[in-house]
């Protein structure tokens, strides 16, 4: 750990990596709460994969891949909605069809570009190679996402909890859905360098699910989830740097360890306390 701290003081690339992954931990944790509460974990996975053709197209055109990614992310979520609303195809099936199609398109586009190293980095991320411009775009996206969630917290809360009531008093629930999908796409883009497309979904749902086991209040859940995301990022980066592991995988596994801890030891939902409660109850009854 001391080596890591020394290296952190010394190497600019490590500082950039740390700042970027902390920001990713925060925004994934925050957006992830809404994703899991709306039962859209699969949607999160889908959208994160679906940005691949957008990233490839942006490379080809030489523009910031932010634009291409948002375009394809939103297009895919519209496509998913269109298919499930206009046929007997269920939502999860529609998600499966659309995101694999987008992902496959992306892979073919990147193969045509003949640069497989880029593909590897996009798919799995490499936070230790993050460039200053990428760090800044992650920070800007992060601030934008956080401001949006803060500004529309009330609307996000009521539409996630009871979308019927939200619609009944005139909130545009469909607009809110696609707005959230857009934020999700932005978060995915911001996370490309850190955890990569394939594992973004873990950063979205694992810290949020961990927080979900620990509290009964949404705003507490959001802060906890962001905090857990940050912890996972720091631990992951540490292991990635020290043992030369893939950064995305290390961060995701760190998040998984935190989830398992909460799953076992959470005061209200954890296995241990539930078992204790059950035993006590049985003792009471057998007396």
């Amino acid at each position, binding site marked *: 750990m001391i080596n890591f701290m020394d290296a952190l003081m010394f190497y600019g690339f490590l500082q950039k990596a740390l700042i970027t992954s902390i920001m990713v931990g925060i925004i994934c944790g925050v957006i992830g709460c809404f994703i899991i509460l709306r039962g859209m974990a699969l949607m999160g996975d889908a959208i994160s994969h679906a940005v691949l053709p957008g990233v490839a197209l942006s490379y080809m055109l030489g523009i910031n891949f932010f634009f291409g990614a948002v375009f394809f992310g939103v297009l895919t979520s519209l496509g998913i909605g269109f298919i499930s609303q206009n046929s007997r195809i269920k939502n999860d099936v529609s998600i499966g069809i659309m995101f694999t199609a987008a992902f496959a398109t992306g892979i073919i586009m990147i193969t045509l570009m003949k640069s497989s190293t880029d593909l590897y980095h996009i798919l799995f991320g490499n936070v230790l190679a993050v460039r200053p411009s990428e760090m800044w775009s992650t920070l800007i996206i992060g601030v934008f996402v956080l401001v949006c969630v803060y500004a529309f917290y009330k609307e996000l809360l009521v539409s996630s909890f009871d979308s019927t009531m939200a619609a009944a008093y*005139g909130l545009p629930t469909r607009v809110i859905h696609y707005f959230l999908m857009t934020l999700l796409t932005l978060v995915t883009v911001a996370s490309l360098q850190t955890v990569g497309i394939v594992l973004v979904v873990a950063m979205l749902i694992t810290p949020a699910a961990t927080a979900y086991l620990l509290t009964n209040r949404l705003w507490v859940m959001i802060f906890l989830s962001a905090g857990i995301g940050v912890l996972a990022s720091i631990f992951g980066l540490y292991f990635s740097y020290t043992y030369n592991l893939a950064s995305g995988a290390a961060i995701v596994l760190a998040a998984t360890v935190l989830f398992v801890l909460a799953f076992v030891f959470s005061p209200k939902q954890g296995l241990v306390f539930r078992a204790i409660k059950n035993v006590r109850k049985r003792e009471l009854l057998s007396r």
Partner: protein
Amino acid sequence: MKTAIAVNGLYVSYYGSEALKNVSFTVEEGNLVGIIGPNGAGKSTLLKALLNLIQKEKGEIAILGKTIKEMRTKVAYVPQRSSIDWDFPITVIDTVLLGTYPKLGIFKRPKKIDKAFAHECLEKVGMTELRNRQIGELSGGQQQRVFLARALAQKPEVYLLDEPFVGVDVTSEETIISILKQLRDIGKTVVVVHHDLSKATAYFNELILLNKELIDFGEVEKVIRPEVLDKAYNNQFSSLTNLEVKA
């Protein structure tokens, strides 16, 4: 007395199959109205059409003389219990506080006065002690009371409740119906989707009897006659009497 709800020639269908056919009725302010009818009669559909949550094919709906879009904040809806995610990380008091959101508008947060009002509404349904519980930890009746409190917090003129007595204990049912009667007595309009015919006379003063079409509408005593009910329930009751005769 003003007209609270006026429905004229309402048609609603789901994917081509008709859910409501040519339904017309008017409810004056200060009435407690039950919507009754067999399963699949379109009772919930009627509530959702009133709220403009589903598209109508034809017909007019007026709430307090205007369209629902202009009157949204004057109407509160209490959903069926089965449509709520009871594991959602939200406490009882925060659920009631949601009722103050419609009048706050976008970007604004509930202030002290709104929170105090939410507490007041929670007290009315007798749930103050459980205010910091997560909503999933409550019994069915307590959950229903919380959602009634949320509707109260919306300060509406019209209350629409979908099956509020399903899976609800007797005490909660009594609390809820007495609050609904108080609301009626101060001039609010309350419409309740209900399936239990036996309590209809005790609970409501007007009934809407529905089976895709409007079978009958009016004073409870006028509607709740066997020959009228038979039309809605497709002679289910007469077949029951036949069975009795045979046995």
